[in-house]
Structures are given as C-alpha cells and as structure tokens.
C-alpha cells in the first residue's frame, strides 16, 4: 500500500503542473509577439487543448468508426456492407434491438418519468420533502456495478421449500406464492433489469421535475381549486402542461441512457436469458469475437438511434441561445 503513495501523489501533481505550465508559458510566449497579433492568437491557446482532446477522442474516432464498419474483422480490407448484413441478420442483434427499443426506451423512460413526476408532485405536499427526495436521489451516487450486485440479492432464488434469502421471493412466499428464478425468467427479466435502472435514475428526474414544479405559480393552482377543480384535474389541466417542456428534456436524457445501457446488463446477466442490449453486443464483438468490423457496425446502429435526439437537443440549444 505504502509504495503506491508516490504514484497517487504523482497522479495529483503532474497534471496540475503540466496544465498550469502550459497556460503560463503559452501566455508568456504570446507576450513576446507584437501587440496587434495577440488577440487573434490568444483564443486558440485557450481552446487548443480542448479541441485536441475532443478531436482525438470524439470527432476523429466517430468518423473512423463509420469507415471501420465497412472493413473486415481486423480492419484491413474494405468489405462493403457485409458487416451490416451480418449484424442485421444476427438473431442476437435482433434481440438487442428489441430490448433497447421496446424494453429500455419504452419502459425505462416512461417508468422513470412517471416515478419522478409522482414523487415530485406528492413530496411537494409533505414536510419531510427534502429528506424523502434525498433518499430517492441517493442511488445516483452508486455505480451500476454496485447497483446490479445490490439488486441481485433482491432477486435471488432458492428452490421451493428452502428458505428464500432474496427479498422479492421471500415476500412472494410470505403471501402464499411460489418463488421464481426472476433473473432467468424471459422476457420479464428485462423489466427487472430496467427496475435497477429506474431505481438509479428516478432521483435525477425527481430533482429536475421538482425544481420545475416549484416554478408553477401557487396563485394559479389556488384559483383553480377555488373554482372547484379536483386535484387530478389541477394536475392534468395545469401542472402537467406547464411541466411538459421539462419532461421532454428529462426524456431525451433518459432515451440516450436507454440506448447506451450497458453496465446493468453486463453485471447482472451479461446478455444471457434474452436480455441482450446493443452496447453489450458491441463489447462482445470487440473482445469475445474480436471482430472490429462488426463491433463498429453495431456502434453505427447506436449512433443512428441517437441522431433524432441530437437534432432535438441542438434545436433546443439554438432556441435557448436566441432568448439569451
């Protein structure tokens, strides 16, 4: 343990020194130049490192992936659309597409939104609001690896007759049911994996929706109630429409997560028992099959799925900037 201290210290000091050194030296060099040239060069000094990182780790690789998806397993020869044909006729990929689109995007997104909305609206009416929200928010700090482990114990199964150690099966037996091997129970097991995701993300939705809810004018709600509107009506006619823009924003974030879902599946089932998802499929193509061409083709499929969200986000950003 002790021998690791220098390494951790170096990890702390070297990047700080390097980045501070860079900006100070670059500004000093800039000071040697004629005053007229400085304002033209200065911005590039400040955004240079960021552009280099983003170019190397995001832009160039994203373009390269599109090329690699047209090449063979070792990225040597162009083979046209063969990878896409192979991927799109693979029953595992069909399963992954179904799970991503149907289970993850539809169920995960709607569950988190409903959950977040219910908690935000109801917690607004109790005195222990912040405590309740904090507890629901807490799983945001927990990795999906830990979350998957935690939930494995909730879903765990013993044969009937033996004492159930999993919370879910124990409750089921308590109420006179038969224990079930939940994790292997396709296609319902997809829902159980999604619940882990919902558990982790509900707090995120709650926090945003709750903040947005506080922005709804109280007078508006009071006036509606005085006019005899019932609570469900107040929610349907006033709160929901006013929250809709926020709900859309949260939904886009959730859809992106649903498309990229990886950790939960990797840890809990590794895609077995019909729970495969695209990101896990891609990992397998990369490291188990070692076919970079097909892995890239799966990545391109993922990217295609993201494009609508990307366009939506850019539009929203432009609108925001216009208001600024």
């Amino acid at each position, binding site marked *: *343990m002790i021998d690791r201290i220098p*390494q*951790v210290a170096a*990890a*702390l000091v*070297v*990047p700080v020194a390097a*980045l501070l050194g860079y*900006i100070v030296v670059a*500004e000093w060099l800039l000071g040697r130049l004629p005053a007229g040239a400085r304002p033209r060069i*200065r*911005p590039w000094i*400040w*955004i240079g*490192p*960021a552009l280099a990182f*983003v170019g*190397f*780790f*995001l832009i160039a*690789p994203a373009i*390269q992936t599109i090329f*690699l998806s047209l090449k063979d397993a070792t990225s040597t020869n162009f083979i046209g659309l063969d990878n896409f044909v192979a991927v799109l006729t693979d029953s595992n990929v069909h399963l992954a597409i179904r799970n991503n689109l149907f289970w993850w995007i539809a169920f995960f997104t709607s569950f988190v939104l409903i959950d977040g909305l*219910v*908690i935000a609206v*109801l917690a607004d*009416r*109790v005195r222990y609001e912040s405590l309740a929200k*904090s*507890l*629901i928010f*807490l799983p945001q*700090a*927990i*990795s*999906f*690896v*830990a979350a998957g*482990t*935690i939930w*494995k*114990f909730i879903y765990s199964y013993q044969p009937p007759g033996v004492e159930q*150690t*999993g*919370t879910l099966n*124990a409750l089921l037996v308590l109420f006179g049911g038969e224990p079930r091997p939940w994790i292997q129970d396709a296609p319902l097991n997809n829902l159980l994996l999604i619940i882990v995701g919902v558990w982790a993300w509900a707090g995120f939705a709650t926090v*945003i929706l709750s*903040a947005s809810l506080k922005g709804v004018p109280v007078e508006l709600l009071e006036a509606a109630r005085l006019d005899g509107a019932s609570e469900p009506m107040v929610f349907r006619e006033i709160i929901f429409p006013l929250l809709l823009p926020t709900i859309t924003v949260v939904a*886009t974030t959730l859809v992106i*997560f649903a498309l*990229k879902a*990886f*950790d939960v599946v990797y*840890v809990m089932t590794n895609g077995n028992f019909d729970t495969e998802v695209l*990101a896990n499929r*891609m990992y397998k193509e*990369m490291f188990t099959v070692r076919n*970079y061409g097909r*892995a890239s083709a799966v990545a391109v499929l993922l990217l295609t799925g993201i494009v609508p969200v990307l366009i939506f*986000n850019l539009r929203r950003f432009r609108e925001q900037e216009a208001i600024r």
Partner: protein
Amino acid sequence: MRLSRQLGSLPVHVTIIAVVLIWTIPTIATIVNSFRPPALVGSTGWWTAFVPPFVFTLENYEKVLTTNNMGTSFLNSLTIVIPATFIPIAVAAFAAYAFAWMSFPLRNTLFLLLVGLIVVPLQVTLVPVLQAYQSLGLTGTFVAVWLAHTGYGLPFAIYLLRNFFGALPKDLFEAAAIDGAGTLTTFFRLVLPLSVPALASITIFQFLWVWNDLLVALIFLGGNAAVAPLTVTVSNLVNSLGQDWQRLTAAAFISTALPLVVFLTLQRYFVRGILAGSVKG
C-alpha cells in the same frame, strides 16, 4: 375541516413512504448482509439479522480486502479518478473562458459542435481509440484512462462552465482591464474564484462518472488486474467468487463508500449542476 384535510393527505404520506422504503431497502439489505457471517447470508434473509441472536462480523470485509484485490482496486480507482477529474475540468475551464469572453472565427459553430457531442455515445469511439492506444502502447495504463475520460467529459464540462462564465457581469472584466489585469490574472483571480459553485458541480459530476465508470476502464485497461478500478474488480467478482459470493456485499459497499460520502456532503452542488445542464446522457 382540518381533520378531513389530514385524512385527505393520508394516501400522499403512504405513497411517499412506500416509495422511499422501496428505494432504500435494497441498499440497507446489502449493508446489513455485508456484516453478517457468510454462512448465514447464504441460508437466511437479511431481515433475520434484526432478531436475536444478533450475529455480526467483519469477516466479509476482511476476506474481500485481503484475498480479492479490493485494497489495490481502491487505490487504482483513486489513482484514476484524481487526474481524470482535474484534467478535463482545467482544460474545460480554459476553453469555456475563451468561448465566453474572447471573440474568434467559428466560435459559435465550434460551440454548437460541442453541444452536439454531449449526446454522442462513447461506444462510437471505442474501437478507433483502442486501436490508436494499441499502436502507442498505452493500453492497460492509467494514462490511457485519464486521457479518455478527459476527452469524453469535456463537451459537458465546457457547456456547463461556459454558461456560468458567460453570465458573470461584464463590468467586472472592464474594471479588471482598466486596472491593468492581464488575461491570466483575470482568469485565475477573477473568473475562477467567482465560479466556485459551477466548478464544484462539474467536479462532482466528473468524479462520479469516473469513479462509477465500468466501460472505459474495461476497454482501455483490458484484463490487467493490477490496474483495475473497483468497478472492474467487483464486476469480475460477480462471476468468479463462486462459493464465496456472500463477500460481494462487502465489495459492493466498499466500492460505494467514497462516492456516497462525496454525494451526501456536496449534494446541493450536484443538484445545481443537474439543473444547469440536464442534457448529458
């Protein structure tokens, strides 16, 4: 009137308390189990720990720390998370400063590009970056993960910081310029100190992403156990522990302890960050 109002809110209380219980029980169950003897974890439910005889032990922690590489992994996670949090935030702060307060050609286009990149799934970049790392001999090194996390974290960090920097009052910069403050002085003595809340938000975000990341570590560190962070080690233990699977409870808790502390102490900055830029996936 009062009574009926109280009764009317009863379903509200019941629903909230039920949801809170569902949300906390999994974590409590794991923590309780992690302090129970392995034989009991395997044969009885965690709730039986609350009836006599109360049998608790540190055995799971002891075993998992000494025989399953968890101590080393904790240090590895720490070695990864510090630079992988600092570098992107420093680089992002430089860039955000330029985007907010300097004018240059293509400024808006470049910024729009960054906003678009926020949602690009990093899976799209994995194969080419891995190939580049392989030819540079960087796979399996901490540097590989530091740099990758920097690249992936930058778009959101720049977005968040630029919005905050840009909202600082213009008069301050003019006054600083009149007093003869140069770019460096303005940045270090004015912009950074005034932006502590935004810097705190993005630090917590980046810290949690990196600490909880599995994919980037899995891909760029390969199977190298000597450099594996907690997430990779724990996910391996899920499959490799076999008979000793009870230790997983302790492993899961160890991997979560530090982020939980950070999260609980700095939660309000985290919330602010979420509200300031809820577009990151």
